[in-house]
């Protein structure tokens, strides 16, 4: 396998982008990544998108985007793994470059979620759960994570305030990110008093509905070294699956696929979790970040709530988690999220993260997951 580097980053301001269609949102991010790479060459493209079919009625997406990017006839593939579609696109791009199949690969992620009503969006996101045995009963994604939260609180004594502290921390970080959808700061009281979505989760426990895209350009490390941009290496990639049905899990308070994917990615990189200077993780709900810190081994099982309470995962803490603001504040255009995590980590490792810069960051990890953890993608990035 060849060493793979990230040489270009592209992301635009996320939000409710009423005036822009999916193709424009994607192309804007892709052009930024190509420009940032300083290399006008794309050999192949991989796009993560969860459900352009349900959100905008458009399939056959990769060819459409290759066309609007002005890159026909390059090979282009769209990959789907629910909310981890972006992370999966990154892995496929990584494999394509590492294998020698292509040299310069554009990896993008995109989702256009505001062309449908809230009920329709809730339904579309619900297709990441078991349609016949979970969604059929009226379950939603906030509902599934709420059930994980109830079980976690019951078993470990995780508190309402600890859930809120995840939102407070991530909005604090997001307030330093000019591309975040909701850069506003929140307080524990605001989260605790916000409207209930699925008990105990309130609206400020939930990541938002977002339109957005992100893109990165990958190439072999040897090629990257001859170019002017800093070459940040992808040194590990891990991918694992689990049941998409929450009721089929042996332990609903544990994210086993994340644990396994992280183990694989770190083993490939020859690193330990303590070697990482920062983490971008999939905080689709506040409880998710607590459970992810446990699955990654940043906190002991059941101690993820305590970790956020004690500031371990804060921007200046021992293990900074979600310096970008995470899905909570930055937004969560589902297919774009996994790629945007890579954009943030590479920015941090280049030392270009501005006010939210983790000082001296040399190594970072992304964790992206689909559904309630039915899929998980973990990547390790390192600066030379």
């Amino acid at each position: 396998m060849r060493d793979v580097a990230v040489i270009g980053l592209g992301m635009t301001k996320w939000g409710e982008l009423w005036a822009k269609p999916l193709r424009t949102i994607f192309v804007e991010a892709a052009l930024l990544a190509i420009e940032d790479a300083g290399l006008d060459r794309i050999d192949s493209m991989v796009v993560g998108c969860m459900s352009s079919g349900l959100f905008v009625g458009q399939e056959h997406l990769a060819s459409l985007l290759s066309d609007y990017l002005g890159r026909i006839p390059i090979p282009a593939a769209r990959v789907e793994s629910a909310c981890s579609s972006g992370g999966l696109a990154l892995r496929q791009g990584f494999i394509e470059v590492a294998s020698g199949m292509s040299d310069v690969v554009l990896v993008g992620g995109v989702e256009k979620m505001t062309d449908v009503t809230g009920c329709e969006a809730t339904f579309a996101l619900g297709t990441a759960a078991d349609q016949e045995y979970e969604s059929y009963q009226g379950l939603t994604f906030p509902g599934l994570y709420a059930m994980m939260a109830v079980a976690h609180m019951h078993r470990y004594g995780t508190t309402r305030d600890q859930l809120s502290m995840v939102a407070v921390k991530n909005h604090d970080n997001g307030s330093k990110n000019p591309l975040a959808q909701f850069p506003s700061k929140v307080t524990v009281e605001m989260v605790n008093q916000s409207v209930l979505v699925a008990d105990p989760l309130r609206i400020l426990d939930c990541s938002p509905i977002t339109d957005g895209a992100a893109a990165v350009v990958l190439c072999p490390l040897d090629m990257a070294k001859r170019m002017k941009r800093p070459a940040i290496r992808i040194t590990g990639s891990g991918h694992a699956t689990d049941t998409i049905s929450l009721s089929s899990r042996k332990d609903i308070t544990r994210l086993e696929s994340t644990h396994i994917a992280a183990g694989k990615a770190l083993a490939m990189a020859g690193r330990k979790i303590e070697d990482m200077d920062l983490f971008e993780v999939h905080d689709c709900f506040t409880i998710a970040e607590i459970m992810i810190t446990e699955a990654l081994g940043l906190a002991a099982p059941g101690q993820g709530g305590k970790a956020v309470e004690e500031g371990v995962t804060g921007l200046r803490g021992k293990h900074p988690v979600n310096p970008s603001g995470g899905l909570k504040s930055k937004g969560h255009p589902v297919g774009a999220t996994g790629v945007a995590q890579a954009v943030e980590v590479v920015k941090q490792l280049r030392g270009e993260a501005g006010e939210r810069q983790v000082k001296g960051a040399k190594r970072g990890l992304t964790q992206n997951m689909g559904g309630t953890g039915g899929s998980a993608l973990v990547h390790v990035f390192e600066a030379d």
Partner: protein
Amino acid sequence: MPTPSRYWREIPQRYRLEAEKCKGCGLILFPPRLVCPQCGKREFEKTKLAGTGKLLTYTVIRVAPEGFEDQSPYAVGIAELDDGARLTAQVVDCDFSRLKVGLRVKLEFRKIHEDGAAGVIHYGYKFVPE
């Protein structure tokens, strides 16, 4: 709107709680599968789910998906039945204040939702406190 076949083929599970028991390891499979996820065996005997169990977790859905808007708020839970099978269903005939981990429940046949004014009426199981 899906054709009725999608609904019809799940009737044995949704109406009659038909499940399978793995001849290799005894795991109850609901819905039935072709391969046991625990031991990999492919031989099963038919069984019916235990009708009672206890809640492992629950929530109250206040923002409903398409098709359930008129029902919210409603409670949903995961229960472990007395035969070890786990499944997800709404918890009904139960004040939200009574919901707790460990609550004893039984399965009852209920209406789930409707495909609009002229479509199929979907039935299935719900949890009711014992």
